[in-house]
């Protein structure tokens, strides 16, 4: 225990005293959050999203002109309830159903919905019945915040554990520790604990700091949010550990870490929803831990999801953490 604490404290000191890397860890997410809140402060996204109950084929048959309007993205839904929910959150601008009744739904507070309604009327849909739903808009910044924080955690965990261990191995520091009575498990646990506590502290700091200015849309439990973020950090730290278990070359480790982090950054739903993406992309996203972290955190913040709703995410993160840890510890070597 004494040895564990010594390694833990030493790693904390190393991280906190390395000012340039510490400030980057804090500044990077803050800059992104404020950047997005400014860029998307007025809704200049010109793409319209329309949900179609049933198939797009049916819509084309009934309303060929409307279905061929440019700059509208059509997304198919089977569940009417789910589609309406998207309209409530301003994630869809309009939902249209041709069978059994000709109906469309718009959000009464959405300007895009208002315009789409006019377009629908002008392209043969005058006879469709109007239904309205109410719901406060979730700004893009509210939606993207869990993604940005999770992405920052991902980089910090993967590189702060993975890259650093490879560096220690390459420059002989691990070999020096091997010559002491310290065990590999004590060493690895101390590295993980240090990174976990520091990244959680930074994430809370960034969240609270940004919240003072931007007032995020957060309707769920803060405890649950903290829990899912802790679990996500553990999972990503273990992933870094796995990458670093044997590698000796920093360049190769950097490349491998990029190989893991880039697909996660693009495919885990950090920046945009994967809805309407090809099946294989959605399937691929499911094996990326960041996807589960982002979806869990986002569900808590924007939908007020409870522990049962995000249980699949929690389960996936736990299983992946365990898997990474076991393999990483088994194949780890000092040199």
């Amino acid at each position: 225990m004494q040895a564990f604490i010594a390694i833990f404290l030493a790693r904390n000191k190393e991280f906190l005293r390395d000012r340039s890397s510490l400030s980057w860890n804090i500044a990077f997410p803050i800059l992104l959050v404020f950047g997005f809140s400014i860029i998307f402060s007025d809704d200049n996204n010109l793409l319209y999203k329309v949900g179609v109950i049933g198939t797009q084929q049916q819509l084309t048959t009934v309303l060929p002109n409307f279905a061929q309007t440019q700059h509208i993205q059509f997304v198919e839904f089977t569940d009417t309830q789910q589609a309406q929910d998207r309209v409530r959150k301003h994630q869809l601008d309009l939902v249209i159903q041709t069978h059994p009744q000709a109906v469309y739904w718009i959000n009464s507070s959405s300007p895009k919905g208002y315009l789409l309604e006019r377009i629908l009327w002008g392209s043969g849909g005058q006879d469709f019945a109007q239904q309205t739903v109410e719901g406060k808009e979730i700004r893009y910044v509210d939606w993207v915040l869990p993604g940005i924080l999770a992405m920052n955690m991902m980089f910090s965990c993967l590189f702060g554990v993975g890259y650093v261990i490879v560096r220690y191995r390459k420059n002989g520091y691990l070999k020096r520790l091997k010559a002491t009575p310290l065990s590999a498990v004590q060493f690895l646990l101390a590295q993980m604990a240090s990174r976990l506590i520091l990244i959680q502290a930074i994430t809370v700091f960034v969240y609270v700091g940004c919240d003072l200015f931007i007032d995020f849309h957060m309707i769920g439990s803060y405890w649950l949010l903290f829990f899912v973020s802790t679990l996500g950090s553990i999972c990503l730290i273990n992933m870094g550990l796995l990458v670093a278990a044997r590698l000796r070359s920093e360049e190769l480790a950097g490349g491998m870490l990029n190989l893991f982090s880039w697909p996660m950054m693009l495919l885990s739903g950090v920046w945009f929803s994967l809805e309407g993406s090809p099946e294989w992309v959605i399937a691929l996203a499911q094996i990326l831990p960041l996807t589960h972290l982002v979806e869990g955190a986002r569900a808590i913040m924007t939908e007020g999801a409870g522990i049962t709703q995000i249980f699949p995410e929690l389960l996936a993160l736990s299983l992946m953490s365990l898997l990474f840890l076991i393999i990483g510890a088994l194949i780890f070597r000092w040199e």
Partner: protein
Amino acid sequence: METILEVKDLVRHFGKLTAVNNVSFKIPRGVCFGLLGPNGAGKTTTVEIMEGIQAPSAGQVLYKNHPLDQQFRQEAGIQFQSTALQEFLTVQDTLNLFGNLYQKTIPQQELIELCSLGDFLDRYTHKLSGGQRQRVLLAIALINDPEIIFLDEPTTGLDPQARRNFWQLIELVKSRDKTIVLTTHYMEEAETLCDIIAIMDKGKVISQGTPRDLLQAHFADTVIQLPKDIDEQILHEMQLSFYVRNSHYDIQSENIEHTIQTLLTHKIPLQQMQIRAWNLEDLFLSLTGSELRV
């Protein structure tokens, strides 16, 4: 004398290369044991197997008659050839860190005085000079008050002044009745510090004993050194036995008067002649390098 560490029939292969080829020796408690050899002779591999850092392909290392175990880890101090320390930690932090990894430690103040670390205790370890750094690394190797200390080329890369300071420090450690295992390719260092030496070449121990015994066994009395501008053929004609060095000849002599007489009769200029005793450097060269010509 009681044996503290024994190496038995050690072999280490790296692919097709045999870095260590059937090496055996015993190290008595309380001596400074020097492992000498040119670069690539297998010194570091041998010493790392002795430290339990590398596994041998065959053979055994016994510490106090037992295979290396947790007790050895607690009682051994190790300084590698090159070791990076954690960045952004001061010398003081580093001592605290390593001290906490052992059950038994030497009082920190004593260690700081012994290795003269007082002047740079608060400096980050990555900002130390070469000599300061080696002293910190030695302090870490001594932190658990070890019974046996391994030093792998501890003065390589140091300037002569820093090297001499480091030797003084090792003498201090020796006076505390510790066993030291030292690898080096500086013969002067081995001559100053070591009680027993083993000379390695191409993975084998080619000679071992006290420096004095080894010199007596390999060389007759004295050496006469002459500049190289003399024709080698003339030396052969005089029936002298000699080594050809880079810049001079080393002529073996059992009777100095007689040898000098011979040189004078052949009108060899003696202005730059030097007469000296054989040293480890000569022994090393004769064992691992240039051939003796008769």
